[in-house]
């Protein structure tokens, strides 16, 4: 089928199948069942996992189809926020590093909306410096693992069936060398999920406690004690998926978009015009950069750490845009719209983009170190066994 035809069919399908009411990300909490049901239809129509290998349940198509679909989907909002971690990070990590059994068990179910996934990396004492984490996994008699510890800021965990857990398996070696990535069943005994109310007043993320949680044999992703390298794979996917907006609302629903602002501000005012032009310039610049990255990917040039530049720019744009929009609209912007939306919702949510997936400072470190190959900072923790280190807020 040629691309135009593919795109036309996608548009028709979306028009017929996407729920009419704006499905804003945060509202998905109440709509998990709807989201699962929608994912199943998306999968059956052939639009879930477009570029993922056909062998494991994907469509095995190219970036061209993926982009065509994404362009159509960007006009509407797919109610798939609860799947964003699974589709954007956990799934791609399994495709890259999982065993054949892991792929067979999870990928198709993930793509069909039968499994919701979360990413269990951050801890109270380890966010930017995630390799400082303290959650322990020790071998169990059956060849599996026993896990104890605490995770925090875990998005969508309250709905999750599985998580990609990063745990410490060796304290005698430096911190990056004693980590292992494990697939954890979020319904297993000993897993406690407590939703955390965030600054929007909702619970986008959670804290998780592991008390003697048993993890089945065959759950290691990558190598034992090779978890850092597996985590880097996940984080690369994370930055790319955030910057390309997997599971995020389309412009139709963005109250701070140029289209939406046109309705509420005086576009003849020259000062307003200049600010709107600035917003347009920044939005276009980032959209074109993202389009370039996806063309490069298609041509076989893997963007790697340059995805951090796209993530940083999106974080800055999101904050700039929400700030500008509220300031332009004035005091009436302060009233939340039903469902916590509107410009008040946008400005309250904006900081999430600069924190989740790594802070702006960490993105700049990565660009400096891995894209520009600048000399690294001197570090106190690199060659010291983990058990001898200070981490988090310990002194």
């Amino acid at each position, binding site marked *: 089928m040629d691309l135009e035809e593919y795109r036309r069919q996608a548009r028709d399908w979306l028009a017929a199948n996407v729920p009419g009411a704006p499905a804003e990300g945060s509202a998905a909490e109440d709509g998990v069942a709807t989201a699962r049901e929608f994912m199943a239809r998306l999968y059956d129509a052939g639009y879930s996992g477009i570029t993922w290998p056909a062998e494991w349940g994907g469509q095995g198509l190219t970036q061209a189809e993926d982009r065509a679909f994404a362009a159509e989907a960007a006009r509407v909002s797919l109610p798939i926020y609860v799947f964003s971690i699974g589709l954007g990070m956990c799934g791609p990590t399994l495709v890259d590093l999982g065993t054949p059994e892991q792929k067979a068990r999870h990928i198709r179910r993930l793509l069909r909306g039968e499994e919701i996934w979360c990413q269990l990396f951050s801890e109270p004492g380890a966010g930017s410096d995630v390799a400082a984490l303290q959650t322990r996994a020790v071998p169990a008699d059956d060849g599996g693992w026993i896990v104890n510890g605490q995770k925090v800021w875990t998005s969508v965990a309250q709905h999750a069936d599985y998580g990609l857990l990063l745990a410490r398996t060796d304290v005698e070696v430096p911190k990056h060398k004693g980590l292992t990535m494990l697939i954890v069943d979020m319904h297993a005994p000993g897993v406690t999920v407590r939703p955390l109310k965030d600054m929007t007043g909702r619970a986008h993320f959670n804290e998780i406690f592991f008390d003697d949680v048993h993890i089945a044999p065959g759950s290691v992703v990558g190598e034992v004690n090779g978890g850092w390298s597996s985590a880097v794979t996940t984080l690369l996917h994370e930055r790319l998926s955030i910057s390309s907006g997997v599971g995020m609302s389309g412009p139709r629903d963005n109250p701070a978009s*140029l289209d939406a602002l*046109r309705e509420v501000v005086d*576009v003849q005012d020259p000062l307003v*015009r*200049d600010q*709107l*032009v*600035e917003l*347009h*310039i920044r939005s*276009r*610049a*980032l959209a*074109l*950069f993202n*389009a*370039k990255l996806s*063309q*490069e990917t298609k*041509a076989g*040039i893997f963007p790697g750490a*340059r995805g951090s*530049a*796209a993530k*940083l*720019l999106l974080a800055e744009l999101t904050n700039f845009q929400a700030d500008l929009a509220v300031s332009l609209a004035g005091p009436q912007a302060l009233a939340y719209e039903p469902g916590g939306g509107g410009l008040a919702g946008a400005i309250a949510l904006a900081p999430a983009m600069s924190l989740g997936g790594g802070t702006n*400072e960490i*993105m*700049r*470190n990565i*660009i*400096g*170190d891995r*894209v*520009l*190959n*600048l*000399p*690294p*900072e*001197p570090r106190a923790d690199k060659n010291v066994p983990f058990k001898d280190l200070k981490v988090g807020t310990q002194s």
Partner: protein
Amino acid sequence: MMLILSPEQRELRAAVRSFLAAASPLAKVRQDMESPDGYDRAVYRRLNGELGLSGLIVPEEHGGAGAGHADLAVALEETGAALLPGPLLATVFAAIVLTEAAATYDGQAVKELLPGIAAGTTVATLAPLSGDRGGVTASGGTLTGQIPVAPNGAEADLLLVVARTGEGEALYAVEAGAPGLSRTPLTTLDPTRRQARLTFDGTPARLVATGGLDVNGDAHGHVLARAFDLVSVALAAEQLGVLRAGLDAIVAYSRIRVAFGRQIGSYQAVKHRLADMHCKLEQADAIVRFAAWAADESPGELPEAAALAQAYVGRACFEVARDHLLLHGGVGFTWEHDAHLYYKRAKSDEVLLGPPRTHRARLAELVI
């Protein structure tokens, strides 16, 4: 939409880059900028002869290579990165406007003027470049008025002048030795690109294209508008090269310069600024590729793309050039060091087509 280079474009880039590295390295740029001509005629001849740059986008029937604006952008990015002195950009601007006129206006003048430019034997310029184009008036085949700055105006054999007529704007050609033409070389900020003041006093000029109707009575008011959009894209490509070269230079320096016992690039205050400069490069690159693609393939998107290119890339280029200079420390402020050459080229380029707000105002008209 094509935002990455084709294999042929990568070859073109490599060819121009290696030519310039050998024929016009920065040490040579400094020598040439202080020479009487301000550039090396032999290098210029080879650039047009061997690489065909001045005629790159000129149709084959007029002696050019018939390449696209996306190819031209690749070449100009390299000449920008090399801070190539001389009239290449001015001549390319002239080639662009004449090529547009040739495509739509049935004038003998275009057919006679283009081959010399394509062959690299005619040095030409286009003026005024700024949006406020009311300075010269045409009447009865002569021009009167003044253009305060014209790039390479004193070196050009051929001046293409946008003048006001009774029926709007029109493009005229003036020969270097025409009576009533006086050209005053100016000492300007950027020593690598000379400019001159042009004064016309009843100077005979040849009509090349009208902004209104052509000889067949078809409306071609958009000819000049489109030509200036293409000029904006070409300039943005040069600016992208200046930006890239400035960033490369400071990244290299921050790996070797040591302060307080470590390389300055290991300090976050430096590293984070370089990361932000890299983000500007990525976006500027995507915008230039988009605008050059629109120039070739999507005329309807060109006006917005051209205004976007000048509004974003012009600013980004100056900011990166400025920060690259500052991060060099004291040596960046010396005449000996090359940092000021990038800084000055970046500022000159940013205002070459008029005050930057005019691009933003244009964009506002198109998108708001």
